[in-house]
């Protein structure tokens, strides 16, 4: 490649990078940074919550992305203290939608083929094992699998109450808003969930 052509190519790459950097700055200036911080702070827990409910990484990523999009598009101008219940409410509905769609698809596949080939069965959640303490991680993995299996057996509302209130540390009011019910209902769902989990997770005593 001649020298001049290489320089030209390099200039083009540099100008593209500069344009991207400018776009990034514009984006940072036009959007409230706190929304970015909020989403950054909640994305891991949201992903794990969706993955535990859906049992599938891709579906979980889709659900979280949809929830982020919806919050940013429709509720970015709301006060920051409303974002937490709004985000979890959107994500909860999205997860429920995906579960229902999956159920309908499973029924249709079973009806069309006369059998269910198990394609939609939920795989066990399997966290990566790349840490320095394999035994501890193995124990944690088994405990997490047991917890996921126990949560799967709960009715949907009880599972949601436990996931939001206990695992994601939402307070009673935020959990109630996210679930679209009263705080009293949250307490009832949570109490029933705990009762069942105590029986399912006997080993944890």
């Amino acid at each position, binding site marked *: 490649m001649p020298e001049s052509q290489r320089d030209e190519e390099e200039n083009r790459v540099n100008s593209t990078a500069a344009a991207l950097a400018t776009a990034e700055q514009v984006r940072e200036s036009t959007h409230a940074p706190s929304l970015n911080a909020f*989403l*950054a702070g909640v994305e891991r827990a949201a992903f*794990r919550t969706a993955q535990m409910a859906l049992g599938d990484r891709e579906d979980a990523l889709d659900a979280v992305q949809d929830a*982020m*999009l919806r919050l940013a598009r429709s509720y970015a101008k709301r006060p920051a203290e409303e974002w937490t219940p709004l985000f979890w409410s959107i994500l909860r509905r999205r997860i429920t939608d995906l579960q229902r769609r999956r159920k309908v698809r499973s029924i249709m596949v079973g009806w069309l083929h006369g059998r269910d080939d198990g394609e939609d069965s939920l795989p066990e959640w399997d966290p990566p094992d790349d840490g320095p303490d394999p035994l501890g991680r193995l124990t944690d993995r088994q*405990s997490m699998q047991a917890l996921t299996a126990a949560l799967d057996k709960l009715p949907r509302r009880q599972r949601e109450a436990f996931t939001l209130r206990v695992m994601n540390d939402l307070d009673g009011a935020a959990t109630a808003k996210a679930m679209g019910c009263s705080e009293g209902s949250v307490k009832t769902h949570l109490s029933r969930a705990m009762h069942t989990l105590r029986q399912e997770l006997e080993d944890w005593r």
Partner: protein
Amino acid sequence: MNDTPNIENRAHTLFRASCDDIDDATLARLRRARVAALESPPTPLARRMLMPAGALAAAVLALVVAWPRHPAPNAPPAPVVATANGADNAVPDDDDVDLYNDLDFYTWLASQPSVASRRN
């Protein structure tokens, strides 16, 4: 012994540990999703209001179209309309008339003993 705090604490700790264990590829996709969400233009309020209204209108239309139309319970019976050639719809066809004319014969035939019973 109340073991509820134990279950709560352990579930919470495990969940937080699993959140810290997310692989880099997934984290990168979450980051991209976040950037894409922040870059997306806000949905106008009018559109947000119109969408449920449109869905409601579509549902009402579908209900109206699919609503079963039964005749009124006390409606008078529809008058018999003569066909184009003047024949009455209530008149049976030729086979039915023949059967009716020969009804006496078929009644007598049915009352007769069968051939097998006569031989016995």
